[in-house]
């Protein structure tokens, strides 16, 4: 985190190398969030680049009292939604490319069909809940950061996440029974 602050200070002054470090720190999380929203590699890379360009250009307006990820996440979601609105290209179908590029860790018993069922269950959630569970499953943000992003208390975030996970579980159960 101290490194992050150091690089952010340099990047604010226009240091490209320092900013590249910031990109590296958040690369996996931001790419994952965008990819889970857009489901397309090319669009994801375009939007990913756009997000970090906006971040670089607006670093001076970043309030260092706030958590950097919270600010970055706000820009990320705004850019994703703008992209979807402009291009209307968020595919509803789950493509092979999309499934292959996502790995489920912590559950060795997960089959490809289970993964598909999980992604479909996530897809059927309301947008705000989907964004919340993406953050959690991607381990992109801690409970405290999610609380700051959503404006909820940490205990409320925990309760909400628990309910969402339960609903996902029920939907996957339903999928199993159909299958």
């Amino acid at each position, binding site marked *: 985190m101290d490194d992050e602050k150091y690089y952010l200070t340099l990047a604010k002054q226009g240091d*490209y190398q320092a*900013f*590249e470090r910031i*990109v*590296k720190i958040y*690369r*996996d999380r931001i*790419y*994952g969030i965008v*990819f*889970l929203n857009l489901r397309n*590699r090319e669009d994801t*890379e375009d939007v*990913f*680049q756009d997000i*970090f*360009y906006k971040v*670089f*250009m607006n670093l001076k307006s970043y309030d260092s009292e706030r958590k950097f990820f919270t600010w970055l996440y706000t820009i990320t979601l705004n850019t994703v939604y703008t992209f979807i609105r402009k291009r209307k290209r968020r595919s509803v179908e789950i493509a092979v490319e999309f499934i*292959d*590029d*996502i*790995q*489920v*860790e*912590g*559950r060795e*018993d*997960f*089959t490809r069909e*289970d993964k598909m069922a*999980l992604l479909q269950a996530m897809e059927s959630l309301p947008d705000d809940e989907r964004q919340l569970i*993406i953050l959690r*499953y*991607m*381990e992109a943000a801690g409970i405290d950061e999610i609380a700051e992003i959503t404006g909820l208390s940490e205990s409320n975030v925990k309760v909400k996440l*628990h309910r969402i*996970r339960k609903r*996902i*579980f029920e939907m*996957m*159960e339903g999928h*199993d029974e159909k299958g």
Partner: protein
Amino acid sequence: MKKDNTGDIRLTVLVPEGIEQRTMDVIRKRVAARILLRNMMRYAAGAVMALAVTFTVWFGVLPHNSTKIVLIYAFHGEKKVEVAGSFNGWDERIAMKHDVKNDVWSAEITVEGKGVFEYQFIVDDVIYTAGQAEYKVKDEQGNEVGIMSL
């Protein structure tokens, strides 16, 4: 398979190799393009300003390269007197006014630029003369042409 709990799941997404370098390249290019555009806008604004100044100077807010002269022809009972000259390419005859008080025909003419100009009075459409011009020459028809230097 029974999925009794989805809480311990962690999703990871394969990130294309070199994405951070490509992103930095894009950022550098966009920033450079932005600077270029900003400079171009500055030059364009400068050019527009220069044009505006030129326009202002040319169209008279500031004095420009033109001279107003008054041509005089002594009145001898003519019905009308006009004047033409090289100052307007001999294209237009300018009607002179009868100044009763001074008993002369007069016309105020704006001449653009500097140099030597020729002029001629046309009296009642038939007589072509230089009148009492100080400097005069004769044209091919033998008519007098007045000369003025500005």
